[in-house]
């Protein structure tokens, strides 16, 4: 909770500073752009969070985004699949990827890092191969589909609410309910803290971990679909590249520990928004784009450093009190 409030404060500071430095920062067009992209990254981060809570990692998120983003237009445009079949089909593929990851990790006892690193390469290669490395898009005949991502709900004056924000909120609420209100959520946190003890308490730890990977990959697939409709032009070799790193960074910024057992949906969503806002502020304030990763990396580093500092301070105070 403290952590979430902490990064919320940082976000607010970043917004205020950017607004002062560049008055155009809060014009409707930019706000719409930032919130739309924040929503996509928040969705991917929520998925990543599930595996991170169990103490795992998923490095294949970006490649799943790329594969889905290329496969969907290929099926609809080239192979004349009905979107109502193609969309569930690619979601099914994403879920299957999650099942494979989960089985390799829980049954074959492979390390999550290794399994999903292989996934990162394999799905990227598959995307390039099935498309012949040609750019993919829906052309002009499917504008109604693109509206799934591009529709904006008018709010106030010329300010709008991009529809992906609504999807993100729905996913966030479902994820929060799953993690906080259901027994499975409790089990995931327990596994992340102490898998042995969870197993000894009768929790089917293998099944829960598998579920986490399925959720992560499925959400990556959903994100991939939304991004495909939004961009309408996907380069198989680069679309979605490094998105897993943004997702992991947002999750860590939002309070997840890579050791597992920690993290809240609210924190992760704010973390994703913060990352995207920084990225945008970097452009708007005229800082060279070449420095954009420097900015994001530094903020992430300072964020986790500050968090450790706060923990250390709290620990010292507790010690001081107990010896007093």
């Amino acid at each position, binding site marked *: 909770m403290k952590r979430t409030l902490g990064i919320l404060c940082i976000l607010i500071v970043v917004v205020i500073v950017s607004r002062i430095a560049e008055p155009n920062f809060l014009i409707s067009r930019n706000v719409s752009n930032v919130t739309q992209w924040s929503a996509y990254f928040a969705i991917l981060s929520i998925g990543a969070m599930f595996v991170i809570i169990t103490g795992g990692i998923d490095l294949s998120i970006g490649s799943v985004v790329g594969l889905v983003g290329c496969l969907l237009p290929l099926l609809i445009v080239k192979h004349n699949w009905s979107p109502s079949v193609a969309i569930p089909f690619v979601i099914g593929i994403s879920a299957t990827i999650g099942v494979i990851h989960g089985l390799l990790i829980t049954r074959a006892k492979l390390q999550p890092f290794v399994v999903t690193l292989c996934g990162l390469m394999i799905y990227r290669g598959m995307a390039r191969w099935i498309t012949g490395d040609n750019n993919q898009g829906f052309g002009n005949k499917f504008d109604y589909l693109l509206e799934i991502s591009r529709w904006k709900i008018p709010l106030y004056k010329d300010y709008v609410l991009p529809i992906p924000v609504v999807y993100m909120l729905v996913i966030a609420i479902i994820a929060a309910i799953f993690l906080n209100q259901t*027994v499975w959520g409790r089990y995931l946190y327990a596994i992340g*803290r102490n898998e042995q003890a969870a*197993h000894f*308490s*009768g929790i*089917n730890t293998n099944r829960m971990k598998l579920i986490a990977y399925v959720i992560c990959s499925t959400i990556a697939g959903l994100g991939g679909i939304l991004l495909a409709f939004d961009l309408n032009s996907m380069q198989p070799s680069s679309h979605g590249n490094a998105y897993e790193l943004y997702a992991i960074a947002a999750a860590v910024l939002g309070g997840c520990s890579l050791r597992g057992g920690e993290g809240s949906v609210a924190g992760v969503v704010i973390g994703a928004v913060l990352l995207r806002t920084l990225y945008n502020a970097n452009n708007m304030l005229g800082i060279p784009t070449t420095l954009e990763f420097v900015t994001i990396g530094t903020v992430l580093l300072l964020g986790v450093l500050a968090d450790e500092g706060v923990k250390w301070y709290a620990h010292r105070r507790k010690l001081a009190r107990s010896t007093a």
Partner: protein
Amino acid sequence: MASVTVPTSLIRPPGVPASTIGPLLSATGIVKEFPGCKALAGVSVVFEPGEIVAILGENGAGKSTLMKILAGVQPPDGGELRVDGEVVAFNDVSDAMERGIVLIHQELNLAENLDVGANIFLGREPTRYGMLDRATIRRKSRELLDRVGLTCSPDTILGELSTGQQQLVEIAKALSISARVLIMDEPTASLSHHETQLLYEVVRKLKSEGVCVIYISHRLSEIIELADRVVVLRDGQYVGEIKRVELTREKMVSMMIGRALTTGSERVAHTPGNEVFRIEGLVTEAFPQAASTFNLRAGEIVGMAGLVGAGRTELLRAIFGIDRPLAGRVVIAGQTKPIHSPREAINAGLALVPEDRKGEGLILEMPVRHNHTLATLGRTAHAGAFINRPREVADSREMVAALGTRTASDLLAVQFLSGGNQQKVVLGKWLLSQPKVLLLDEPTRGVDVGAKQEIYRIMEELAAKGLAVLFVSSDLEEVIRMSDRALVMHEGRITGELQRHQLNEAAIMALATGGSLA
């Protein structure tokens, strides 16, 4: 700056061999305290070159602590160590090594991924022009391996050797730093019969070369075969010594236990109910040759005694579905229940309070409440999915009240509780699952005396309510005090069953060390 003056009595006259000055290694009045317990209370022992000395004592008698002090792993809180009559203070293991004292740990300290030669010279690699001198390593390793009777090449990767061979590599490593005192903590605990014999040969050979071998073992037959002298410790104190000619199993057991043999038990006699639990021919992976069969009746408290590593924990793990047994079956209330996971065990009415409370019993960072309900959350959930919060709060509070767990709030993380209260949280978790059979592995390990009594009371109350209670304990007094009946294990086998009137320390120790009842 104060100048250091060396007492003249400690300066070795030139030309006089060390052994004429004083014994090879002597410890006088060694004291070591740990928070809450005195591990060693003034122990004095002397070791001479060319002898094999066995150190004997029950679990917790202070054997390992003494060995660690001799080898510089831990400094003593009081007392004096002398090597060749010179007072020494070891700051760390390398200080002791410099004087030729080497400890071989129970768990070997070798790098399994490196080859044999690299392991022998780890940290002391011979170099040439700043590069590893592989030829020298190979040549010297060969000589050392020959001395311990290992025929393998120095280039063999250590992990490919058997445990026994690895043990010999560890000895070769000790010899490479010209060890004069070799301390071995249960060296045969994980060796096969053949490997054990091989080790005996090497030990005897070292003895003939003038090395002093100090040896901890729980196996009395082994000590009888090997030792020149047995030093007995009990409750951190030196009890006495037995010379080789006087060495008998009975004498060792009685010295180890010391006080008049306890036969009384504070547990009130009562008639147990019907059989609720039985295992038939259960075989664990750790001891593939030993099949275990026993039963438990309602309202009965059964102790399971034995030495550390006797296979008791492995048996409980197999019963509870953590490890897959190689053979055998579990019968609960007359029905065979296949148990492949803790979940199935819980559904069958079993509960296990594991030995490793922090690693297996609790999720330390989670609050008391969440730990309490971890095993039953699914059972009480709405639609099997949504946590029933009021029920969770009520269940947790009920357990805190019923077990008298002292915690500021049930939302406090369990890591902030004392050992005894942590154990009560584990017990609470299992009581909520309403088991028919409660399995406890070392339930009072690491808890203070008061909490121990409370845990005993809880066990008795549960038995009175009709639960069958099986507890593993390495504490003989505890087994005698609490058991209606005790099973004793040795090397994976149940070597005997003692009824309450037969329970005494001599009988248990005899069975636990592989002997039979007199």
